[in-house]
């Protein structure tokens, strides 16, 4: 299997606080990795380091074999990234924003228009294409963020809470979209919704206090608790005292 995402010993310290502590894993093409953990466990920081936004204190992250810190631009071309909270430029229209992303990514003219039309189709944005982003609902904003990450049809997707703020129908659409793209991409999604992990992820990593404490397919993780539910396993693992967790 082609490993598209490789993380080795990734560590981030903020002063005395260690947000991410020696995290290592890799994700191959065709895998959808669910990134789970309580708030403040280090999920977003790990994703920010993967996207090259936060510089790690130690360790390396590679996208498609390219070091995120040293071959930054080359690594980022392979990545579609939805940052935490899906930040967007509020005064731009949806089309104007996607045109900007297309331009930065080097798409011009007809190709840019085709790509924008395609991602609008995928994320159901056609109805709001000429509206300023600030007037959109939370669900639409999240989808604009997704559209931006998919525009260049990247082999690697890192999506920080892609379904946050969506209604149940929209959540279902996004999950279907992720499942459809899964075979040819390596995808990491972070989420608090455990049923989502069972629905779309081929593998789940649970992270707590900056460390990976479990890494297995969701069904297998669920079996670790007598009740057989992923939620119980999650709770048991992440509320355990530090000594046990480590």
């Amino acid at each position: 299997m082609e490993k598209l995402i490789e993380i080795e010993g990734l560590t981030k310290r903020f002063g005395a606080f260690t947000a991410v502590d020696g995290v290592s894993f890799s994700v191959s093409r065709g895998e959808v990795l669910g990134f789970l953990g309580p708030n403040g466990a280090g999920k977003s920081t790990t994703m920010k380091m993967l996207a090259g936004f936060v510089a790690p204190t130690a360790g390396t992250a590679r996208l498609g074999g390219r070091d995120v810190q040293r071959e930054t631009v080359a690594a980022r071309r392979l990545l579609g990234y939805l940052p935490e909270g899906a930040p967007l430029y509020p005064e731009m229209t949806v089309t104007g924003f996607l045109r900007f992303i297309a331009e930065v990514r080097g798409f011009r003219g007809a190709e840019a228009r085709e790509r924008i039309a395609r991602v609008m189709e995928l994320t159901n944005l056609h109805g709001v294409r000429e509206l300023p982003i600030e007037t959109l609902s939370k669900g639409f904003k999240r989808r604009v963020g997704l559209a931006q990450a998919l525009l260049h049809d990247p082999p690697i997707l890192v999506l920080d809470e892609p379904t946050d703020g969506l209604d149940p129908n929209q959540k279902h659409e996004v999950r279907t979209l992720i499942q459809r793209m899964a075979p040819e991409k390596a995808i990491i999604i972070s989420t608090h919704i455990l049923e989502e992990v069972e629905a779309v992820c081929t593998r789940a990593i649970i992270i707590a206090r900056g460390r990976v404490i479990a890494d297995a397919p969701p069904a297998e993780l669920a079996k670790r608790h007598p009740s057989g539910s992923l939620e119980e396993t999650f709770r048991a693992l992440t509320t355990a005292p530090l000594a046990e967790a480590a």
Partner: protein
Amino acid sequence: MGPVLAVMRREFAGYFATPVAWVFIVIFLVLQGTLTFSLGGFFERDQADLIPFFQFLPWVLVLLVPAITMRLWAEERRLGTIELLLTLPLSQGQAVGGKFLAAWAFTLVAILLTFPFVITVNVLGSPDNGAIAAGYLGSLLVAGAFLAMGAACSALTKSQVIAFVIGVALCFVFAASAFPVVTDFLSHNLPLLATIARKLSLIDRFQNFVRGVIRLPDVVYLASQIVFWLTVNTLLLEHKKAD
């Protein structure tokens, strides 16, 4: 160059997405006009030149340029879009350059809109239009230096107000460093610093342009001010982008 132009276009359009651009341009022109005609004695001097106009321009820029640059990075930080922008496939230098060029282009529009002064002085007499052109070139370079300083200040904080205040202070230091008040004080106490302060002054360099003299050292000095502050801007982003 593609990503730089993309960032520049987005940022430039951003100025006109809100009334801010128009408010800025109107205030700039009113301020510049008032100062030139009343304090500068444009008519009373009875001379066909734009010396009174150029005399006040750098000071108006000290006050207004940081208002153009304050949102460049502070707003990206506040909205969190800095994470989006700086994870796109472009280098930090390209992002800094694109934003600077947008702010410079906007300032160019504002400065060019002072063309009625040129027409007026040409109708009333026969001025040295070469000197006027040199004055405009100098204005653009001084504005560029102030813009680069303001942009660097904007990278420091997520508050536009703080970016503005620090920006005005920084621009003022470089504008006023050759003032007699400053240099007299320094030459009494620290003679070496007085010489440095005089050399650093943007206004002294600018005066040469206004007299119609384009000297290579002045152009190089102002260009290196721009490059220096854009580098500071890039380094600040590098070290503080995720804070």
